[in-house]
């Protein structure tokens, strides 16, 4: 099977063509560097994604705080992680960078707050 995709590591945006057989990578063409090769391999075997979403903030100046994962996780766990995120409620104040949930679902990635939310006076 041939798979075409674009490398996103750097602005070069190399067009990559991978040949895959029996779930094994036979060849990757189009990369200009090793980072690109590594990205391509990862992308084919176990694509990784970060997730950005929102959690409820109680008693804050705004109702929600944006959050994101500190490290990418497997693409196929996206909706599992989303379900965990939807359960979370924080109390104001919220500070950027705070770990909201450590090692979410044991996937070695923390959910961190990306927004400062002050307490509503």
């Amino acid at each position, binding site marked *: 099977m041939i798979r075409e995709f674009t490398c996103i590591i750097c602005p*070069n*945006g190399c067009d990559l063509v991978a040949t895959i057989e029996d779930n094994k990578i036979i060849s990757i063409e189009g990369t200009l560097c090793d980072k690109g090769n590594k990205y391509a391999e990862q992308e084919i075997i176990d694509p990784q994604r970060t997730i950005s979403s*929102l959690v409820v903030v109680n008693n804050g100046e705004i109702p929600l705080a*944006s959050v994101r994962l500190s490290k990418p996780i497997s693409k196929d766990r996206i909706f599992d992680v989303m379900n965990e995120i939807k359960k979370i409620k924080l109390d104001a104040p919220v500070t950027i960078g705070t770990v909201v949930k450590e090692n979410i679902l044991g996937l070695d990635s923390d959910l961190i707050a*990306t927004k*400062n939310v002050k307490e509503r006076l």
Partner: protein
Amino acid sequence: MAVINKDVIIVGGGAGGLAAAVELRKQGIEDILIIEREKELGGILRQCIHDGFGLTRFKETLSGPEYAQRFIDEVDKLGIDYLTDTTVLEITSDKRITSVSKDGLNEYQAKAIVLTMGCRERTRGALSIPGSRPTGIYTAGVAQMYVNLKNTMVGRDVMILGSGDIGLIMARRLTLEGANVHAVFARGDTPRGLPRNVEQCLNDYNIPLYLSHNVTQIHGKNRLEGITISEVGKDNAPIPGTEKYYPCDTLILSVGLIPENELSLKAGVTLDNRTKGAYVDENYQTNVEGIFAAGNVLHVHDLVDFVSIEAEKLADAVVEYVKNNSLPECPIVVETDKMINYTIPQKISGNRDVSLSFRVKKNVKNVTLQVLQDGETIYKKKLKKAITSEMEQIRLKKDLFKSRSNIKVVITV
């Protein structure tokens, strides 16, 4: 009314305004005021909760709010003055600014004005999409604000028109929040958004992208019930017989950003019809002396990192202007051939090293970019690839310029 004198007033406290302010202060300008109409600084970054910001600048992939906070923290640390919940009502060509807030009206006299007001979105009304007028049709930025800042869900069965980045981002956003995003339709034959977004917002979720398609009819009396899609030809005219009906309750429009230059026009600033932003020289100075522009209000960017860089370069020039009350002439006009949409700046001095930002009109591969002056090639660069959705940059050193004649940037295959 007592007029308040200021060295520099920055209109708009988003990515551009924040970077300009910090750089100005770092270079010794004390008397700065940022005027921001929202409750907080940060501009559009406040609602861009996805990551991908700061890759080149901070070597990290941050969300929009985090990227903005880096600059807001500096603004606070450096003690730069700013007003929020304050709207600029008028800017005059002699650099007077009238602003209004809950505390009243204020009039300022600035030595230099920095325009960093960002963009507004192209609307459904401007497109004149035929059909009925139900609710459920939102521009992507408005939908993004509702979902990310106002905790408000806009719909359940979503179609998206336009392959710009904001629409792609919202495709993913709405999917993650439980909506069914059925498809993205776009007029062009190549996606307008970044390849990374097509991959991670559409392909990841099996959302199909139909290029060369357009919405030709809206259906639904009170709330949207469906859309008719047609294939379009190269001239964007719908091809008869290709109509298909798709039921949905929400249509997201991501059909273009327009630099928000209403205040600029009233100040006498001349706009470039290609960018809908100001004509500027290499100092980012507009045709009105002492009024400068950078960021999305100057031309629509795709990476905020470049907005910050542009604003910092603007700051260099503003520092010089405030100190010397003038800046060197920029008589060299930058012309382009038909492969290039525009360059920023549009005029240069030829006395200094200068960076030109530009966009190509069509996706190209393995081309040569040349800069010509007086019939000669003064600069040449091989481009492996250039796409319409990504802004490109070239750096021209001052000794390349042989005269004060206009230069032309061309692309040859």
